[in-house]
């Protein structure tokens, strides 16, 4: 397989056109006015427009809350699923993943209708519930896989040396499973900020998230402002991935 390295060239060309160039275009459009002249006005507009800023703040707030709830609910679930004492069946794990294969919009609509039927007013609470409902599997799965791959002998050694079960959990299991938690956070946080349909359905358009205003601007031909908003999101993604390190892809790779 000596010369096989040049087999990556077609994909390299493909990614240049469909991944790199489009991202550069976001930057280009973000710093242009409608006539194609260079300008900072889109960015300054964002920072001086109280509507955009408050939408941004609300999105970050909802995303932080959603991520925290997903960790609080998902970590114990992943731990139980990965623990041989409590769960021996792969099917239970599959049951947690299965909702991901059902159309997300349909699930969200069903959740909204369920709230309507129960007489719960749509708003912040229902938005969070629906978000947790949509993203919980993405938190459970990476934590579950890191817990499964974890070398059990560390925990056993700690037990043999006299550590109490809680100490083993806090000092061994939790630190070793942090990479899984981090990829879970990555799969929950930014997607929450950027969803648009989900927040529209679950709050009856009362609460707008950042994704919605990007969509509205692009769809009403305000491409430059839409691109500027997307650019701001790209910057945040860049920062969060720097924090996160490099190993995220591998967890997702084994999803089936």
């Amino acid at each position, binding site marked *: 397989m000596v010369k096989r390295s040049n087999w*990556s060239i077609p*994909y390299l060309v493909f990614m240049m056109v469909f991944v790199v160039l489009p991202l550069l275009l976001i930057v280009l459009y973000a710093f242009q006015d409608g006539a194609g002249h260079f300008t900072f006005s889109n960015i300054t507009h964002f920072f001086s427009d109280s509507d955009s800023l408050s939408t941004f703040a609300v999105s970050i707030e909802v995303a932080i809350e959603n991520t925290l709830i997903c960790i609080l609910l998902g970590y114990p679930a992943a731990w139980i699923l990965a623990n041989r004492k409590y769960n021996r069946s792969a099917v239970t794990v599959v049951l947690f993943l299965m909702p991901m294969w059902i159309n997300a919009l349909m699930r969200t609509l069903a959740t909204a209708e369920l709230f309507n039927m129960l007489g719960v007013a749509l708003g912040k609470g229902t938005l969070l519930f629906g978000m947790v409902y949509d993203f919980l599997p993405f938190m459970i799965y990476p934590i579950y896989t890191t817990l499964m791959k974890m070398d059990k002998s560390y925990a056993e050694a700690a037990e043999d040396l006299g550590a109490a079960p809680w100490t083993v959990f806090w000092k061994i299991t939790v630190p070793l499973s942090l990479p899984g938690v981090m990829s879970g956070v990555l799969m929950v946080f930014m997607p929450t900020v950027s969803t648009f349909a989900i927040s529209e359905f679950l709050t009856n358009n009362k609460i707008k998230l950042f994704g919605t205003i990007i*969509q509205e601007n692009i769809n009403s031909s305000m491409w430059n402002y839409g691109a500027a908003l997307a650019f701001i999101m*790209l910057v945040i993604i860049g920062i969060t991935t720097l924090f996160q390190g490099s190993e995220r892809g591998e967890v997702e790779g084994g999803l089936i």
Partner: protein
Amino acid sequence: MKKLFAKCYIWLLLAMLYAPLLFIAVFSFTESRVLGSWTGFSPRLYQNLFTGNVSGGAALISAVENTLVIALIAAAFSTVLGTVAAIGIFNLKGRAKRTMQFLNNIPMINPDIITGVSLFLLFVFLRFSQGYVTVVLAHITFCTPYVVLSVMPKLSQMNPNIYEAALDLGATPAQALWKVLVPELRPGMISGFMMAFTMSLDDFAVTFFTRGTIGLDTLSTYIYADARKGGLTPELRPLMTLIFLLVLVLLIIVNLRGSRTKNAIE
């Protein structure tokens, strides 16, 4: 006691996750237009779905067809492109390899809306009229990384000598590729194809931005438009219930077979 508590917790979470799906399934057996009001048991919606007599007209049926066809084409192209790419990347070294892996990660890290908006701008920039072709290209873009990631582990598990051995024993490079390399990589290619297929089926945001204005609808964009008009097409309920059952059965079969072969090996 602890065990009981753990089991209860798991089943409670599952009940929460499945409540809305169950809700759809129950109300697929009543005729009411509004989801949530029960007007007596009736299999009418299922009959409508199978006879094509859907209140929304042919639009729902064609949306389902589009969804499936786009997912099949995108998954097939992604599998070929991704497998060739994985072989290439596997044989790269040092910085070139890291760069390719980094580029491959970008579509997976980017939220859908960024991928969608960026591709929308690309097609606008290139003056490429948007429709079926642009949607398929966009889907290939976000599906291929998953194929690359599922084929790569198979390459590193494989014994590189068997490919060389085939060449030494007189196989042409093409024969060695088809008879040695592809069979070794097949499990990775299949799971990559499945991933790509399901990612494409479930996509909403990327399709939404790249489908243009020719009225092309997939199931997701159809549901979105339908819900914004107020009132979902009732036939979506039986459709979703059937998809749900199909996925459930498929996943359970795949997993039971998987664990059985694993047990057999052990």
